[in-house]
């Protein structure tokens, strides 16, 4: 079983568009499992019409809770808290559970044992059926922490399912950025497909995501999206990839058909046979060769 992760560094370059197209194209040839690792803002479900089969709570971490009847407002908790999560009051202190990182420092230091640690349901994860194969996805609740932990969980579930059913490919739609959820999304991947746009920020962010995948030893490939918005910047990316010894798999043109497909709730390759879909078809063929 192989694991392919779609990343970009910069947000909004077309990761989910590419992931949905690859899910569609790959599933015609081989049994696949899909995982949406962007648990902050999961969008793959919007173009795969998933039927949810299972829903589970995700316990992220703990938060401190102050018992107001025991609190003497001595202020020790606020002194030891490094996350500005204690809200002082005249008679009793309170915890700002959005700021609380669950370190339990206050719990240990409170002289009257007025603080307890409570587990917090920080999100939900789902196992769904789609016409391309099983989808594992999640919703982290607003303003929660531990998105990396939830990403790991969603991916592990996808992996186990793929191994159980002998499915050969796990496609992971990754989050933007280079930090904790991205590190979790790329752990154990056989290949990372980096979706880049030909802009100064796209190039800047490509360098950082590529340094990140290199750092964790995940081989990377590049696909340029909206390539014709700036052909000379696209050439610059091409030269950069050549210098780094990274394969450039395709140049997908800018086309509002991508948005039209999204409005219809379909992967673009299922919606249309134009230049965008044809180029994504070539990208899939090359990804398949690399995974073999």
């Amino acid at each position, binding site marked *: 079983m192989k694991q392919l992760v779609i990343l970009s560094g910069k947000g909004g370059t077309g990761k989910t568009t590419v992931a949905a197209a690859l899910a569609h194209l790959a599933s015609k040839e081989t049994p696949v499992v899909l995982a949406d690792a962007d648990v902050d*803002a999961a969008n793959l479900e919007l173009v795969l019409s998933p039927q949810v089969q299972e829903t589970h709570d995700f316990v992220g971490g703990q938060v401190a809770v102050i018992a107001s009847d025991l609190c003497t407002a001595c202020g020790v908790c606020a002194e030891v808290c490094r996350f500005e999560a204690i809200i002082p009051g005249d008679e009793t202190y309170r915890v700002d559970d959005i700021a609380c990182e669950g370190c339990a*420092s206050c719990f*240990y230091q409170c002289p009257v044992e007025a603080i307890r640690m409570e587990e917090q349901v920080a999100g939900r994860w789902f196992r769904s059926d789609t016409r391309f194969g099983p989808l594992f996805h999640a919703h982290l609740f607003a303003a929660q922490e531990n998105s990396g932990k939830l990403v790991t969980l969603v991916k592990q579930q996808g992996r186990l399912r793929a191994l159980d059913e002998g499915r050969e490919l796990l496609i992971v739609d990754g989050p933007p950025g280079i930090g904790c959820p991205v590190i979790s999304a790329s752990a154990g991947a056989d290949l990372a497909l980096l979706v880049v746009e030909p802009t100064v920020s796209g190039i800047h962010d490509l360098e950082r995501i590529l340094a990140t995948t290199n750092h964790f030893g995940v081989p990377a490939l590049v696909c340029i999206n909206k390539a014709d918005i700036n052909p000379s910047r696209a050439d610059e990316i091409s030269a950069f990839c050549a210098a780094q010894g990274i394969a450039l798999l395709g140049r997908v043109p800018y086309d509002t058909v991508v948005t039209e497909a999204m409005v219809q709730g379909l992967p673009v390759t299922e919606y249309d046979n134009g230049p965008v879909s044809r180029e994504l078809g070539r990208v899939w063929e090359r990804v398949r060769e690399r995974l073999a």
Partner: protein
Amino acid sequence: MIIAVASGKGGTGKTTVAVNLALSIASQRAGEVDSRTLLLDCDVEEPNAHLFLNPTIERREEVGILIPEVDYDKCTFCGRCAEVCAYHAIAVVKQKVLIFPELCHGCGSCTLNCPEEAIHEVLNVTGAIEEGQAGDIRFAHGILNIGEAMAVPVIHQLKERIGEADLRPQSVVVLDASPGTSCPVVEAMRGADFVLMVTEPTPFGLHDLRLAVEVARDELGLPVGVVINRDGVGDRGVEDYCAAENIPVLMRIPLDRRIAEAYSEGVTMVAAWPEYRERFVELYRSIEKEVA
């Protein structure tokens, strides 16, 4: 006035709006002694605002979190530090204390709980803050080091610049947040007077806008307004949502390939089309009215 620019979905134009808004306010207020315009790029995983503002960097400071270091002359290997660590960042094995910096949140609980006072803390560098000047704008951004998971401490220390920056009564601070809805975005929004949501009128844009509004308005209790970028693409979902939720649409930027092309070269809208300056000043005035 502190304005956080956010979106949920990546690539909707947060940096475009943040940069053009700051430039327009700064040029209108040039020469006013009681006013300064600051731009803080809080997308420390993929900071891009500098590519458009080209600031002269005057100061660079390494930042990170305080992690424990054990004084083996005092340590009795009692294991209390490992026991109290909520992040499993410490393991005590025989005559050794193993510390995993990538798991440590820098809460200091181990230091406080060590019965022998055998722990002191040292800075584990995870990123840097650069500060400088871009024309009339005071500029700073954070840069998370490659391979580091935790963006929040870098954002937190970047935002301390707001306090140190010799603010005048009429100063305006524009914060450019990262995509998503979890802890880095919360850290960026915290303490803002207003959250400006930049979205695109597509199903992905709407889905992630809802989540970002949940964070800003429902969790943090901040006033929000929307900028619709690429107006004309997609569907009416965002308009209908904003009307139903009573969220003001403060500006519309049309879908225009020339704007995307200028962006791709790092050219700001106000430089390419000076008439936009007045529109961004108007945007600022409408934010002032919303906050008042």
